[in-house]
């Protein structure tokens, strides 16, 4: 039997505001526990939340970028449940009036472009963090609570179950991440928890109308884990169904170490959050003027960059690599304004510069290389003042020390030798020292010619103009 897979993804993204969503406490990582708190985010009685304008604008911005309709009258609700990382015993969230609804995102799949519908984009607050003394929830003696994260603005993005494979899920997730990063609303670091993901999965016989019973996957902490967790869960469900048994609706935990999903104790009580309107916050009224002002702030997103780069003559592969990397594409866009050979720039950025960056584990904007310096380097090659080899050699100095290429080649005397008489004398020396190779060449061994070119380059420390060397050498060999 063939099965169809339906996957829906729920993403939680921490917004890059400077302060929390309902109080002025700073949002920052790595501060000592409970030093970024106040009566509001500690849930002390009588404290009054006041909504952060920036958080609302980031939510609207993201909803617009994901093609959502904006709810003109959005309100907040209390989601009631008990857990020690939730000081008020309710989370301020949104229920039936999320900021964005009915959006979509298009992704590239093996069978062409596909539209994944987005059900809702809403704003809520993050919880505190729990640390268990034994490292595990059960069996530990004590738990420790840090409320620094409590009240950090969270954006929840929920897709419809339109995703049909783990590969599509990964594509969807990376696309969302890239959009969030390009919008500047979230840093998108799954491993650090600033972007989190849950997935619901079901299978059904191919052609069947009704969705199968779904399970919910939690604890997926990396882009790699998304694919593997879903793959495992799909196989598990197919195995159960093909044995004639039934899928139990439950929450399952992705066990990264053992690469499998495990059932979390099934809850006796179904979720009953008793949502009701948050009386401490007044409703939001989002008018056209506000929406259009925010819409105008949407920058060029990876998808548009990709199309533009292809039109500039880049291969789809090159275009995709550049377009989905915020720092690289920014650098590329600056550089093409100064130098009219996008293909050449892309090639340098994606090969040589990327290699240097990988060695340093840095993004391009964390180095001293500037678009102007790269253009100077490429121009020196174009003008045959230096060879590509030399350019590659001096690249680290540009990246690490920020010295202009012209200065580096002057200081290190790397200017290409284009002086015919100087080269001729080097060639003469090479021919004298390699009489036997010259003999072989004359007998028709073409490879010997390349060897002789190599010798000239060696003696000139790579500075000889290769074209000129070729020419002069042919002449000298008659």
């Amino acid at each position: 039997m063939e099965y169809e897979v339906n996957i829906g993804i729920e993403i939680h993204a921490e917004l890059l505001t400077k302060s929390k969503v309902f109080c002025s406490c700073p949002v920052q990582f790595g501060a000592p526990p409970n030093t970024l708190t106040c009566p509001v985010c500690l849930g002390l009685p009588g404290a009054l939340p006041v909504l952060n304008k920036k958080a609302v604008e980031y939510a609207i911005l993201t909803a617009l970028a994901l093609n959502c309709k904006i709810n003109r009258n959005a309100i907040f609700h209390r989601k009631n449940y008990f857990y020690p990382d939730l000081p008020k015993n309710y989370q301020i969230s949104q229920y039936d009036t999320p900021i964005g609804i009915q959006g979509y995102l298009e992704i590239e799949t093996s069978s062409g472009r596909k539209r994944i519908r987005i059900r809702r984009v809403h704003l809520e607050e993050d919880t505190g963090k729990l640390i268990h003394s034994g490292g595990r929830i059960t069996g530990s003696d004590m738990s420790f609570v840090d409320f620094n994260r409590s009240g950090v603005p969270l954006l929840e993005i929920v897709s419809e179950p339109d995703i049909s494979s783990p590969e599509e899920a990964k594509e969807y997730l990376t696309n969302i991440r890239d959009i969030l990063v390009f919008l500047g609303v979230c840093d998108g670091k799954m491993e650090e928890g600033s972007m989190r993901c849950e997935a619901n999965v079901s299978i059904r016989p191919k052609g069947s109308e009704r969705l199968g019973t779904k399970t919910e996957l939690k604890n997926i902490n990396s882009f790699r884990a998304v694919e593997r967790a879903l793959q495992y869960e799909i196989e598990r469900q197919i195995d159960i169904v093909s044995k004639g048994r039934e899928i139990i609706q439950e929450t399952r935990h992705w066990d990264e170490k053992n690469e499998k999903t495990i059932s979390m104790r099934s809850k006796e009580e179904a979720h009953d959050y008793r949502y009701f309107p948050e009386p401490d916050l007044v409703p939001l009224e989002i008018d056209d003027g506000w929406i259009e002002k925010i819409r105008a702030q949407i920058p060029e997103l990876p998808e548009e960059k990709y199309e533009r780069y292809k039109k500039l003559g880049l291969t789809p592969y090159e275009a995709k690599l550049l377009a989905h990397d915020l720092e690289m594409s920014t650098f590329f866009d600056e550089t093409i304004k100064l130098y009219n050979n996008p293909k050449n720039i892309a090639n340098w950025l994606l090969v040589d510069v990327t290699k240097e960056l990988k060695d340093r584990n840095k993004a391009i904007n964390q180095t001293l290389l500037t678009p102007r310096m790269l253009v100077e380097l490429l121009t020196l090659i174009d003008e045959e003042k230096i060879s590509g080899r030399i350019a590659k050699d001096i690249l680290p100095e540009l990246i690490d020390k920020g010295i202009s290429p012209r200065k580096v080649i002057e200081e290190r005397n790397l200017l290409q030798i284009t002086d015919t008489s100087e080269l001729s004398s080097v060639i003469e020396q090479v021919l004298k020292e390699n009489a036997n190779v010259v003999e072989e060449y004359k007998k028709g061994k073409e490879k010997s010619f390349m060897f002789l070119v190599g010798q000239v380059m060696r003696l000139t420390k790579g500075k000889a103009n290769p074209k000129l060397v070729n020419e002069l050498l042919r002449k000298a060999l008659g």
Partner: protein
Amino acid sequence: MLSVEEVIHIERLARLKLTDKEREMYRSQLNDVLNYAAKLDEIDTSNVPPMYHILPVTNVLREDIPQNNFSLEDALSNAPLKEGGFFVIPPILGGEE
């Protein structure tokens, strides 16, 4: 009349453990509260938009300016148990999130 099962459900949500006698008492009291509020059902509200807030005010927002004037000592001052800047709590049982 509220059923015993419904009271047990509310009891669990509120993390309470009632005796049979208490459960009966609350069942009757909760029922009175519900009946009192049910008077509102007598009014036809089909053409009345829901009121989310008692004040005719919208968009009370603050600028995104961080401020930190609550000390760690203040934060932990009511904690029965603390250690290394953390609130210390008993281990968590049950899978409720």
